[in-house]
């Protein structure tokens, strides 16, 4: 029972995170690329209920003024926070043009929940938009990996002999490769000045293709054992073709492994994208991704002075942990069924 509750909470949290990222435009109060040089490295906006005139039911905030030693709240004017505030225009789900945001504050205040980066861009909005990229990279790269792994693993396990030896030999080679340096090498080999969209595609293809070896070995093992099952031999005896045997009897068995594998690979690939972007080999500015948002932290003074810029790292950790928990749960669930 406790397990069930934990699973429900986990699922709900995962769904909420994905919805928030999917509708980033709506939940983000600002345009992720809009710069505001007056607010470079501004700290997170504080939300107040008690002002000079006493307690207010509605939360409010103050505008920020730059002082000689940092930012200070301009307490002369209380600016209420609004739900469904009008703001920057954005495209929801790549189709609908909207201006309404989930929440916001009137000018001159800016509601920057996680502060601002060097160019005064809202870190929270960038976190949501960047999450879209990072998560999409993880998901698509995982699909690519599993597709490649399923094909190679199945062919290897089903046809055996020299095909198996050759494919599994190269799988071992891929496993032995220090994948990070390999990724860097492959990425460096590809053109450096390409549009963010192309970079994104290149990146996920590279990440996705490199990771095939481990799942392919798993799938090969399953196919190998499934192939000799009596009902598979019986189906062959009544004239089932290879394709039929694979589709009907063998591939369904690999799902029990593919699904937990997928949930393990997604956070791994999100981290891979973040790592590459962190080193400037991934998604390029101004498009945000969790990795390139963190790359400013390479500068020591930024790391120690503007701790709010670590927010993408927190998001990365939380998402990864959620996926790992899900993989764990799924593994047990599939084992017991």
């Amino acid at each position, binding site marked *: 029972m406790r397990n069930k509750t934990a699973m429900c909470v986990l699922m709900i949290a995962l769904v909420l995170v994905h919805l928030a990222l999917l509708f980033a435009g709506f939940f983000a109060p600002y345009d992720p690329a809009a710069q505001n040089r007056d607010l470079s490295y501004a700290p997170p906006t504080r939300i107040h209920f008690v002002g000079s005139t006493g307690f207010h039911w509605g939360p409010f905030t103050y505008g920020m003024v730059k002082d000689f030693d940092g930012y200070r709240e301009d307490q002369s004017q209380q600016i209420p926070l609004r739900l469904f505030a009008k703001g920057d225009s954005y495209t929801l789900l790549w189709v609908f043009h909207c201006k309404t945001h989930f929440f916001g504050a009137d000018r001159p205040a800016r509601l920057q929940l996680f502060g601002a980066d060097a160019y005064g861009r809202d870190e929270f909005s960038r976190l949501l938009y960047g999450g879209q990229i990072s998560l999409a990279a993880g998901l698509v790269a995982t699909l690519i990996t599993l597709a490649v792994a399923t094909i190679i693993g199945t062919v290897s396990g089903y046809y*055996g*002999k020299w095909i198996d030896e050759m494919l599994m030999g190269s799988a071992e080679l891929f496993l032995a490769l220090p994948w990070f340096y390999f990724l860097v090498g492959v990425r460096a080999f590809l053109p450096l000045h390409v549009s963010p969209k192309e970079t994104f595609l290149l990146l996920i293809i590279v990440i996705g293709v490199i990771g095939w070896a481990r799942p392919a070995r798993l799938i090969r093992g399953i196919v190998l054992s499934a192939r*000799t*099952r*009596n*009902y598979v*031999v*019986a*189906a*062959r*005896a*009544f*004239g*089932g*073709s290879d394709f*039929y045997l694979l589709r*009907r*009897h063998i591939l*369904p068995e690999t799902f029990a492994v593919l699904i937990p594998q997928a949930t393990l690979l997604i956070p791994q690939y999100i981290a891979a994208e973040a790592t590459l972007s962190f080193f400037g080999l991934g998604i390029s500015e101004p498009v945000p991704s969790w990795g390139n948002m963190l790359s400013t932290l390479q500068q020591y003074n930024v790391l120690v002075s503007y701790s709010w810029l670590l927010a993408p790292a927190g998001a990365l950790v939380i998402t990864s942990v959620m996926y790992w928990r899900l993989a764990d749960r799924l593994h047990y669930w599939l084992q017991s069924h």
Partner: protein
Amino acid sequence: MPGPLLHVKDLRVRYLPESGGKVQALEGLNLEILPGEVTGILGESGSGKSTLASTLLRLLPASAECSGCVVFEGEDLLTAAESKLRRIRGSKIALIPQDPAVSLNPVTRVGEQISEVLRAHLRLSRSERKQRVRQLLVEVGFEDVDRIVDAYLHQLSGGQRQRVVIAQAIACRPSLIIADEPTSKLHSELHCQILALLANTVAQHDTALLLITHDPTILAGFADRLMVMYAGRLIEQGPAESVMRRPLHPYTRALIGLSHGHTSGNRASHLPSIPGEMPNPLHVMPGCRFEPRCSEKMGVCATTDPQTFSPESSRLVSCLKYGN
């Protein structure tokens, strides 16, 4: 007299286990199956019966090596292209596997699994297939066809499972059915029922049946011809009735003697058996394979491999007793 439906010539199979060595499973088998004839193959476990069944359809595991030929409709099945073989499997030669509990996919409805056989060979519409499946299920003796069509393996009893695989085997009206121990996993009361069903179907459609078993009692009155296997060889063959009544080979005699003893109600404490064991197939000794256990052995038996002799018309036996 029509020519044989299936002709096996000098069939040899050996397994090459990964642990090394080689296991000779079949050694120079020669046999013919006539159209519409019921042939019984009798042998202890380990005699190579099941290997024979899977060799005929080329379903051996990769670790097996075979030579010789299996001619069916003018085609050597051992060298035929995989695509040609696929068209023969199930449609012309069907296999009733040994254990229906593991020969059906546990997560697919059985009706669908019968329908898949039809789909592999015949061009039928979905509704025609559905109808054929129901007909087949009626044919193998089901009354509640509606339930069976949508049932999963675990919802069926042993006898029902066996009938489902029989329905699969007869789906395309093959000219030969190979039944590998079709009753070994069943309750003894069900034996007769399943055998009667098999006998009926093959008689109705003039199908040849190769019935593999270790139990001579189930062949009595059913098989037309009988072949006895021991340690990968055919040691005796002939018309079933005369072999049963007057076995020539000492092994056949012992085996048939056992079953008589068994049916006459011996107590479990002295269940009859043939003393000794099947020779280890990893270490092949010279001479007759049955020599160590034989009660009628002669001096030459330990050194000379017996030829096949024909002491009477239509009877063949591999025993040196009938040498001259």
